[in-house]
């Protein structure tokens, strides 16, 4: 359904070029839940923005983003507006800043269907009520007139999810939907996304840094580092037998609540400098398994992993 092919995103900044996304390819099929995992600066959010055609003005994009065979990167803003919301919806991290503080919840929800589907105000309100029930906002009818500040963080994120669902899109891009929320609320929101996926058959592309959230929700995982795909695998395979040193390091670094061991296994070093296009493996400077060839050859993604070392030789 969605197929990202050899996507490159660069930003022209005052400090020179920043290579945010380098040669990323993956696919999302209908009804699938896929996770894009990476740390800050790995380019995961930029991929979502590129799919929606919302990249900053100083961005340069190369490659193709095929949506049912059409390349989204060649579309005009007008054409993109027909795809946004109706076919692809997006949920951002911070629910407060994705809602307009001056507009009632009703207006923010109905505006979407009025603009995109030409529904009348009354039909739009009926749809809004339906969707608010679907995201389990209690007492939806009376909450329609409320403003965003009258809701708690979790409720606001439900409204943002409701906004994304208004036109019943085929794909929802969820960019760190629970990062700003408490664990109890996070569990409710993830449950809600899973229910939405089940009830509406929507595909979900979950962008996150939290492997705990991924484990409970997604079928496929794409691991990004320095704007490149390090590993791509089914969730169980990835957690059972991580085949890339970065994925291994990441899994060991997650503090597991049931694990009584004392020290956490950290990945040494700092995130990569993205001013140069990587000529070698971007993870090599921090990799415990790196050998000399890792520092001058760029590994390509083969069988779901971009690593020059064979799996058996990794520590």
């Amino acid at each position, binding site marked *: 359904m969605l197929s990202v092919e050899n996507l490159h995103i660069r930003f022209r900044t005052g400090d020179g070029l920043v290579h945010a996304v380098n040669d990323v390819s993956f696919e999302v099929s209908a009804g699938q839940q896929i996770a894009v995992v990476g*740390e*800050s600066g790995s380019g995961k959010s930029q991929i979502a923005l590129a799919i929606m055609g919302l990249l900053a003005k100083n961005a340069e994009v190369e490659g193709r983003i095929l949506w049912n065979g059409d390349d989204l990167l060649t579309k005009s803003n007008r054409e993109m507006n027909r795809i946004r919301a109706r076919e692809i919806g997006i949920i951002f991290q911070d629910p407060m800043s994705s809602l307009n503080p001056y507009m009632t919840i009703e207006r923010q929800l109905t505006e979407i269907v009025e603009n995109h589907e030409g529904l009348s105000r009354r039909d739009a309100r009926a749809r809004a009520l339906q969707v608010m029930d679907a995201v389990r906002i209690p007492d939806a009818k009376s909450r329609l007139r409320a403003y965003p500040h009258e809701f708690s*963080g979790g409720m606001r994120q439900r409204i943002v999810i409701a906004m994304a669902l208004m036109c019943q899109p085929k794909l929802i891009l969820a960019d760190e939907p629970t990062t700003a929320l*408490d*664990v*109890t*609320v*996070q*569990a*409710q929101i*993830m*449950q809600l996304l899973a229910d939405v996926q089940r009830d509406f058959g929507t595909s979900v592309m979950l962008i996150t*840094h*939290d*492997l*705990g*959230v*991924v*484990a*409970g929700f997604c079928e496929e995982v794409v691991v990004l580092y320095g704007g490149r795909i390090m590993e791509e695998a089914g*969730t*169980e395979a990835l*957690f059972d037998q991580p085949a890339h040193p970065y994925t291994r*390091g*990441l*899994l060991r*670094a*997650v*503090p*597991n*609540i*049931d694990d*009584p061991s*004392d*020290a*956490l*296994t*950290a*990945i*040494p070093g*700092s*995130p990569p400098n993205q001013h140069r296009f990587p000529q070698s493996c971007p993870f090599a400077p*921090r990799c415990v398994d790196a050998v000399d060839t890792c520092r001058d050859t760029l590994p390509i993604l083969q069988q779901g992993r971009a690593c020059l070392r064979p799996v058996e030789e990794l520590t």
Partner: protein
Amino acid sequence: MLIVENAHVTFPVAQTKKWPWSPPGLVHAVNGISFELEAGKTLGIVGESGCGKSTLIRAVAGLAPLVSGNVTLDGEPVAYRDRASMQRLRATMQMIFQDPIASLNPRMTIREIVVEPLTFFKPEMGAEERQNTALAMLDRVGIPSTQANRFPHEFSGGQCQRIGIARALVAGPKVLLCDEPVSALDVSIQAQVVNLLKELQREMGLAIVFVAHDLGVVRHISDEVLVMYMGAPMERAPAADLVSDPKHPYAQALLSAVPVPDPRVRITPQMLEGDLPSPLNLPSGCLFASRCPKAMAKCKTARPPMIRHGQHQAACFLLEDAPMEADSMA
């Protein structure tokens, strides 16, 4: 030894006033927290956002006034009396903050940032000794002295947090208060900073108060964990006991929602229904009663004290008649 007894913090809010001359409403941010912390030990404080964790540690540092209760450090009260006593106190109690970059002055080099506490707290030190102490401290947290003349924006978030730790520890405090020190950092960097804190604690015999919302991190760094809700203590227990067998219904709900990084484990988060009570007008009963799945009639009228149950202490009436062998159940 840091002792906090029955700490209460309230903030006046003008918005709720009916008339200009009516008294301001009071937000009850911290409601009766007590704990003791010995040198070399770590107390983790967890709770949802808005439960008063940050206010509590600001109160411990003497930055938010206590309306009642006491904070003492080695027998000396922590409260503002005069500049000199405050300065003595700050030399023994330091803080690190959530946003590593915002907590460093962008116009100072990191050498100046780390030397500054020495200028304040160790006036007897010579200029050269200060420089050397600061550089040694930076080196200890993993910032090479060749980078000491750089400015904060030239460092990554994880490095800035290391610099923040160096600044807090350079004058040799006894207590380190950490307000969500790793929540802004990536997982791989977070582990580095947590490990660094543990090493420094061992070397310097620090007492650490570690506030965070991530139970996994708290579990790893803490000896004891305090669970807060609406500014009040719900449960206090050694970290391992709390995680394996929480006694308080709120602690149970909180732990049930923690995601597990294993696709085979299906977590069944307990959903809490009901509304939070208003912090302006606290109920007379248990603060958690309005959302508690096990609430009884008396929970609505009387506030449960902290009841000891084995290694645990929990503010819940259910523990009053709970048999002790319940400890072995898991």
